[in-house]
């Protein structure tokens, strides 16, 4: 009250009060515990019971996993800790671990899987580097172009003309991406800009600037094509694929194709054209109302009956197609939900500005809808990864199939718990990684929602 109210031209001058920091919260570990754990009798009792329960389980697990553990043995019999009792036989898991990961893939060729995995990691890693430009292209190519290279690395053998073209394309693209990333990190601009400047086209007309990029890409492609023309690896038939590797191949292809097919189906279901709409609805409802295991059995046992004599469609291929279609049907409904969350005004604004249907979908609606759908999409991806365990029922040796195979090995007969625990850990790590990545994406893409 020290200041007398100021006046200006006979009017009181309004002066807003200064903003103050919020009052300090009642924080500290003790305060937190009192508030959250021991806030009254019921709360205290449940806290104590809960802690005891957790402790009991943790001690039990510790005893099983470590105290009774046998780390070195060459058969399950050597895992006995007393004449009547088996110890926790980690030695068996150790012995079989390579098989869990690679299945029955020949030992001498395992490097091919590792190499493909390494290339994939290198291809995706730039997405986390803030200075790299054109992330969308890098990410999309990792999903669309890389599979051809990976497919050849896994399968080996002779390449037909199509695979020859695609493998060279994939390799060129990979090398280009790596160069692009290196240039981004050093000069802060993309490969394209750098080529334009290095070739002196920067001062030319905008329309001419794409030519040096096109010409250099073509040269690079043909160089790679002829360099790898004679490169060949031993063929490994899909029957020898297995373990976590097979699980990731099936679910990876499923994940990569489910989203695009699902988007097309969802748009089709909302289409104004009756024939398109009916077809999409029929497809979605058909695949959603049949259990995956039924579809898998159909794909592997009934589908070959319809093929002409002599045409052999390998089991893995039909399983992958079945998984793709199944997950696409689910994805379509997820995408449709996201599309419905976009207000009509967005479509109208896009329309009023003269954007075509595909432009407004691709530039306005989908980017917003997909962002909203990330939790659901990743949810179905995680579901898909776990659903692939069903292929072990139709005789493919995916991770779960390999785990079951252990207990039938005469050396390790009856060994169930330890391999299953290992599988649980592997699945948990894979699913947790996806879930964490989705949270990271949500935070990163949430920029427009900040208020």
């Amino acid at each position, binding site marked *: 009250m020290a200041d007398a109210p100021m006046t200006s031209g006979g009017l009181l001058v309004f002066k807003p009060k200064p903003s103050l920091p919020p009052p300090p919260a009642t924080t500290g570990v003790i305060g937190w515990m009192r508030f959250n754990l021991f806030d009254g009798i019921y709360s205290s009792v449940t806290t104590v019971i809960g802690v005891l329960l957790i402790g009991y389980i943790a001690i039990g697990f510790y005893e099983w996993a470590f105290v009774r553990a046998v780390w070195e043995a060459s058969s399950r019999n050597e895992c006995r800790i007393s004449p009547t009792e088996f110890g926790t036989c980690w030695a068996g898991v150790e012995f079989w671990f390579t098989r869990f990961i690679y299945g029955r893939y020949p030992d001498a060729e395992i490097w091919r899987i590792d190499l493909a995995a390494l290339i994939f990691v290198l291809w995706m890693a730039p997405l986390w580097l803030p200075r790299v430009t054109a992330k969308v292209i890098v990410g999309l190519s990792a999903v669309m172009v890389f599979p051809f290279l990976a497919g050849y690395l896994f399968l080996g053998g002779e390449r037909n003309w199509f695979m020859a073209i695609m493998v060279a394309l994939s390799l060129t693209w990979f090398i280009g991406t790596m160069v692009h990333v290196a240039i981004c990190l050093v000069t802060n601009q993309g490969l394209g800009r750098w080529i334009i400047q290095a070739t002196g086209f920067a001062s030319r007309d*905008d329309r001419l600037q794409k030519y040096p990029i096109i010409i250099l890409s073509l040269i690079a492609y043909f160089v790679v094509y002829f360099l790898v023309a004679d490169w060949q690896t031993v063929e490994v038939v899909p029957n020898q694929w297995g373990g976590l590797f097979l699980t990731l191949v099936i679910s990876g292809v499923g994940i990569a194709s489910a989203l695009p097919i699902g988007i097309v189906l969802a748009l089709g279901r909302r289409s104004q054209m009756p024939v398109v709409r009916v077809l999409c609805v029929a497809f979605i409802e058909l695949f959603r109302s049949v259990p995956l295991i039924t579809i898998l059995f159909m794909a592997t046992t009934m589908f070959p009956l319809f093929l002409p004599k002599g045409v052999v469609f390998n089991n893995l291929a039909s399983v992958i197609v079945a998984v793709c279609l199944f997950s696409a049907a689910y994805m379509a409904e997820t995408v449709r939900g996201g599309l419905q969350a976009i*207000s009509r*005004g*967005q479509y*109208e*604004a*896009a*329309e*009023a*500005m*003269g*954007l*075509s249907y595909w*432009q407004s979908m691709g*530039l*306005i609606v989908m*980017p*917003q809808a997909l*962002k909203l759908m990330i939790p659901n999409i990743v949810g179905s991806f995680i579901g898909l990864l776990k659903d692939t365990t069903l292929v072990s029922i139709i005789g493919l040796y995916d991770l779960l199939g390999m785990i079951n195979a252990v207990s039938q090995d005469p050396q390790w007969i009856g060994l169930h718990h330890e391999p299953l625990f290992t599988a649980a850990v592997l699945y948990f790590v894979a699913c947790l990684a996806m879930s964490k990545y989705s949270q990271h994406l949500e935070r990163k*893409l949430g*920029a*427009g*929602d*900040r*208020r």
Partner: protein
Amino acid sequence: MNLKTDGMVDQIRSAVSDEVVIALNQVNKWYGEFHALKDIDLSVYKGERIVICGPSGSGKSTLIRCLNRLEEHQRGDIVVNGVTLDTNVKNIDAIRSDVGMVFQSFNLFPHLTVLENCTLAPIWVKSKSKREAEEYAMELLTRVKIPEQADKYPGQLSGGQQQRVAIARSLCMDPEIMLFDEPTSALDPEMISEVLDVMVELADSGMTMLCVSHEMGFAKRVADRVIFMDFGEIVEENTPEEFFENPKSDRTRLFLSQILAH
């Protein structure tokens, strides 16, 4: 186009231009069973500023949304800039690139920055280069007095600022006609004037404008003609002076007494 006219309106028209840019002839529109527009005849001259008012549900928004095919009319002819609106997609595209629209709820694209909102259509529809589109967008953002917000997202702006971005976004397509669908109805009172200022400036620059609005001050100040609609019909079209001082219809008089009472 031979349209119903009276001497008064003719007089104003001659002051504007005698080139008809929008001509509606016996336009009818139904939503299911509901008859939303009834026998609308209207011609708009180049450079003319028209304010359309009327009670809610009277068909005024429907009318201007029919002009760029956000709604489809079922009977009658709409000719915009010499192009007839029909099911031909090419005609619709041609009209949409000549007609800008500003919505009540702004409808900015929340996932794009202000600048990207403004450059999207010029780049994808008019095939402008990014640099060219950005330069022009900055020019227009300066014109609506928010160049400093170019890199923000719409969600970070106030309602008034968002609506000004929406106006700039439409102007980036170099439209010959601007449609405003209640541009200030969703705004706080203190923000209305900043949007109206931009619209007045636009009107002074000679843009053909059709504006659905209840801002009577704006109508008095810039409109060449005020149109009053009710039950899907044009009840009265008149100069602003005559409209406010000496309305011809009892329905107009009632409406004015209601909105000007407070």
